[in-house]
């Protein structure tokens, strides 16, 4: 068990900058997830913590010990890899005990620990199998057993579930959480799958382009995204963005179809400044069923509907027959709405919708930093009622 601290980590590959200037403070026993799109530097970050990659500058500390110059074996960490990376020429027992044998533990102790680790991941009776004789899930469990058997200070997991099929992935996700509860060890987890990030972690570090965007608990990232990138990245389907500017009355969209009234003095921006309004699909409501503090009606037409079972995604356009720019659907007036399965919504019908004002987000268009979360009067920061599951009722 240990804290992990990254200070001013910078990593360059030739002229490419993989990590710009990363600072992370991970507390003892925390489950941290690094998320971001491919190539954002999250794998480089975890490799830097592991010692497989040397940072160009900056320091890495594990358990308040500067390990920047130490080789991986002396850092007190264990790692689970995306490609599982079991040694194919060794059986399960030898795979699990590899690290212990290298550290010259005595036979009885190795036996005891391997037994216990195999027990934790439910691999009893398979210790003499070869990795090639096992299924993907079993192999991944061997990899996890290999990591926990050494009782390391911290676990690093680089997309460990990415190569498993969907059903197994969900199963292993719960198992990993159980293992974390049991061992109470610091875990740094890398994934591009936000379902894993949301469900498992104590805190999420959202990384884009080698920069830390937000480092907060999952629901905080969801309800109070620090900037446009986090708002767009966390949450599926993604948030609607509407470009506009601040007026004395509130927000006015550039396309002209939307005004949101609020007191502009409550946000840290000048009247006339370009801003971006963000609304999650579940906070776009059909006006006839909407209650509470909502915006004025917007007349739209339904375009495409996607029934998902527990909800229906409805694509709305502000002008009937308008062509939607695939690259930037928000600019051409496309909105995505998520409604309950009982809603009676057809395609190509007029529909007036409203936004739930308490769950709107306002971002500075230039700096992309969040200006406000919730535009009710007075502007409050309230995230208690909008969990991702409770869409609209």
């Amino acid at each position, binding site marked *: 068990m240990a804290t992990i601290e990254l200070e001013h980590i910078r990593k360059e590959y030739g002229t490419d900058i993989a990590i710009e200037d990363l600072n992370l403070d991970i507390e003892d026993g925390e489950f941290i997830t690094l998320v971001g799109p491919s190539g954002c530097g999250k794998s480089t970050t975890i490799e830097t913590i592991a010692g497989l990659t040397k940072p160009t500058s900056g320091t890495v500390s594990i358990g308040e010990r500067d390990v920047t110059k130490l*080789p991986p074996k002396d850092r007190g960490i264990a790692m689970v890899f995306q490609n599982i990376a079991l040694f194919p*020429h060794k059986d399960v027992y030898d795979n699990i005990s590899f690290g212990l044998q290298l550290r010259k533990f005595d036979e009885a102790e190795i036996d005891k620990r391997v037994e216990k680790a195999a027990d934790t991941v439910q691999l009893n009776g398979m210790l003499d199998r070869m990795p090639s004789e096992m299924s993907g899930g079993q192999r991944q469990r061997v990899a996890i057993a290999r990591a926990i058997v050494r009782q390391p200070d911290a676990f690093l997991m680089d997309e460990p579930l990415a190569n498993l099929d969907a059903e197994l992935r969900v199963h292993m996700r719960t198992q990993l959480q159980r293992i974390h509860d049991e061992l109470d060890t610091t875990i740094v987890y890398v994934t591009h799958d936000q379902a894993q990030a949301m469900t498992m972690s104590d805190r999420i570090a959202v990384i884009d382009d080698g920069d830390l965007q937000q480092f907060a608990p999952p629901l905080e990232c969801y309800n109070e995204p620090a900037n446009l990138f986090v708002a767009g990245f966390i949450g599926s389907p993604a948030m609607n963005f509407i470009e506009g500017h601040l007026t004395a009355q509130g927000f006015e969209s550039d396309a002209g179809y939307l005004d949101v009234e609020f007191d502009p003095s409550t946000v840290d921006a000048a009247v006339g400044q370009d801003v971006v309004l963000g609304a999650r699909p579940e906070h776009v409501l059909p006006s006839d069923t909407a209650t509470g503090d909502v915006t004025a009606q917007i007349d739209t037409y339904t375009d495409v509907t996607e029934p998902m079972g527990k909800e229906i995604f409805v694509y709305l356009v502000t002008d009937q027959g308008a062509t939607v720019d695939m690259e930037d659907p928000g600019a051409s007036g496309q909105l995505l709405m998520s409604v309950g399965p009982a809603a009676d919504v057809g395609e190509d019908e007029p529909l007036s919708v409203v936004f739930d004002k308490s769950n709107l987000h306002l971002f500075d268009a230039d700096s992309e930093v969040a200006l406000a979360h919730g535009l009710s009067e007075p502007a409050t920061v309230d995230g208690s009622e909008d969990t991702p599951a409770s869409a609209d009722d």
Partner: protein
Amino acid sequence: MSQSTQPETDSTDTDTGGLFTNWVDSAIANPKKVYRAMFATVAIFFLFTTLFPLYWLTMIAFSDGSRVSEGVGLLPTGFDPSSFIEIFQQVPFHLYMFNSLVFATLTTIFVLLIASLAGYAFGRLQFRGKRPMMLAVLVISFFPPAAFFIPLFQLFNQQISFLGITPPELYSTPGGVVIPLSAVFLPLAIFILTTFYGQIPDGLEDAARIEGTTRLGALFRVIVPLSAPGVATAGILTFIAVYNEFFFSFLMTGAAAQDWAPIVDGIISYRSQFQVRYDLMAAASIVAVLPVATLVVIAQEKIVSGLTSGALKE
């Protein structure tokens, strides 16, 4: 050599014209027959060219020594297996063999060790000047080894000094053979191992390093075992080449077994001023083949087991 198979097929052609026509007809209907026939022809040809010399050698070795010099045909002249004992009585042939085996073993160990390190660097690391360095290795391997001989001979005889240091006398020691031959056979081994080591997934090496090995530890505990077929190939090629090597091992050593003379010296010593004992030479050659043949059989099993255990499957 191929002539001896040719007349046979010819004779069947002409003698049984009807049969042949039938065969052609059925071959047109079933083209696989033609492939089988071609395979048989080629296989017989290769078997003949490789096995006939061995038969020839065995035949002479078992012939009556006194009658061999009269001339030999396809069948042995008399039967006299005593030459297999006589080869050890006339000269200490086992010592010559020992010398050659020492050269081959030491060179193989050196080559595999150094080529493993080089193969790791070339196959798994990214560094500036990698391509020029690999090219340099390739270019050096094109040099005729004979070009190195005179300077090395002078150096090993302490006639010249190198960087102001006179090396210990290496002439007539294993060093005088093993050092130049290691250099000569290194490039091939480096290329083989570079290819094999380069194919091992990075994740395995990372996993080994996280688990507690150094880079070198990961090389010898994970990468080398997983590249067993490649290591075996490089090792066998080197071993056989050195064991069979004539030029350096003959010239860098004396003529007597205690001067580290190789097998060739032993075989040559059956030629005295008055007679040439071809039967002893043949017997000695057969005995000399045995260690290599055994090694290949053992190593082949290793190669096959390495390939079939799915070692490289992720």
